[in-house]
């Protein structure tokens, strides 16, 4: 979806302000919100694309006014309410008002480290040969799905060059909807700065995105 999360090239946010000696978390609640989100994914039954969409699918003013871990918390609440794990009333009341959904098994302490070290690889066996070759010129499609996508607005409709082929990977646009992994070839596509931002742009700049095959068309 074209939401406030899609920030590439947006003006007016001001300078980047690094924080010297920044801690991993700034408050105890950030630790807990982070850990709850990670630990609820398996029992909750959602995937990474669903959780990204739950964070970004909100009005721009809401997205922009929340801190990073506030967005994680809001996304977690959405995902759990959607699946009937908790009710909005319970979250607002801050206490249990309904019985738990049956058959949910929590992540055990000794499962955490192996699960994190394993991660969730997204590469899958190819079912068809890759459509595009390294070095080939392609155009990104102009699309504006109302659902989750990973093709940023600033590259849509632009000419780029296929630079890397990463194999076939789970397709977020369908995976976020629970419509299957639909693995597709994933490419790094490089764009010249002036192609994206106009002729006055620094000619030494180039930018790449990682784009699934169905985001791209032949020219």
């Amino acid at each position, binding site marked *: 979806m074209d939401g406030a999360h899609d*920030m590439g090239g947006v003006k007016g946010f001001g300078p980047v302000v690094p924080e010297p000696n920044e801690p*991993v978390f700034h408050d105890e*609640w950030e630790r807990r919100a982070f850990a709850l989100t990670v*630990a609820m994914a398996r*029992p909750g039954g959602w995937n990474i694309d669903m959780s990204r969409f739950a964070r970004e699918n909100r009005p721009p003013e809401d997205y922009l006014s929340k801190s990073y871990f506030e967005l994680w918390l809001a996304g977690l*609440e959405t995902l759990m309410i959607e699946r009937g794990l908790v009710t909005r009333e319970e979250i607002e009341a801050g206490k249990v008002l309904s019985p738990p959904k049956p058959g949910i098994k929590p992540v055990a302490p000794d499962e955490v480290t192996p699960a994190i070290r394993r991660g969730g690889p997204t590469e899958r066996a190819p079912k068809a040969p890759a459509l595009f070759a390294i070095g080939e010129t392609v155009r990104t499609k102009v699309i504006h799905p109302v659902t989750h996508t990973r093709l940023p607005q600033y590259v849509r409709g632009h000419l780029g060059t296929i630079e890397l082929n990463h194999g076939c990977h789970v397709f977020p646009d369908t995976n976020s909807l629970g419509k299957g992994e639909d693995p597709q070839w994933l490419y790094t596509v490089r764009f010249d700065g002036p192609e994206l931002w106009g002729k006055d742009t*620094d000619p030494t700049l180039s930018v790449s995105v990682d784009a699934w095959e169905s985001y791209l068309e032949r020219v």
Partner: protein
Amino acid sequence: MSDHDHDRHDHSELSETELRVRALESILTEKGYVDPAALDVLIDLYEKKIGPRNGVRVVAKAWSDPAYHARLMKDATAAIAELDYSGRQGEHMVVVENTPEQHNMVVCTLCSCYPHPVLGLPPVWYKSAPYRSRAVSDPRGVLRDFGVTLPETTKIRVWDSTAEIRYLVLPMRPEGTEGWSEQQLAELVTRDSMIGTGLPKQPSEIA
């Protein structure tokens, strides 16, 4: 999502979020969905074991061991796993090497994608609107915010992490470090130099 979130929230607002998270954790625990002890393990992992010191080891080894450097550039995921770093948000790694001709910088304009096994969780600025919006359109301006100026002729290459591929920048080994051990070289590697918003320290800086 701005850098100023912490300034903008007054104390009562923060407390409200704190109470909300605390209540949520007790609801989920009571319902049997989470084990608080598992949350403690998770937090400890990200605060104490998974962090930029891991990436520092990768870079220092690549600088001092040509065979490792070659393996890292060919298959970064496997070469990084040799040092026992792997998993969540680093399942598919690519290392991009800075040269006198090209400087690499990594961003995630859509969210906060970042190579956790080698760099840990991202800093606030990496997830902030100013960085995500400007890194792709004005990377030299962003570098200025970090106090870094590159020669005008150096090409700037920005990698927007829009999929599950995670990028680690291999900075250039500073001059004047001939014969340095891997441990000595590690002292020169900074987190920001592995994102591309900074450069490694010079030998004079750690003397």
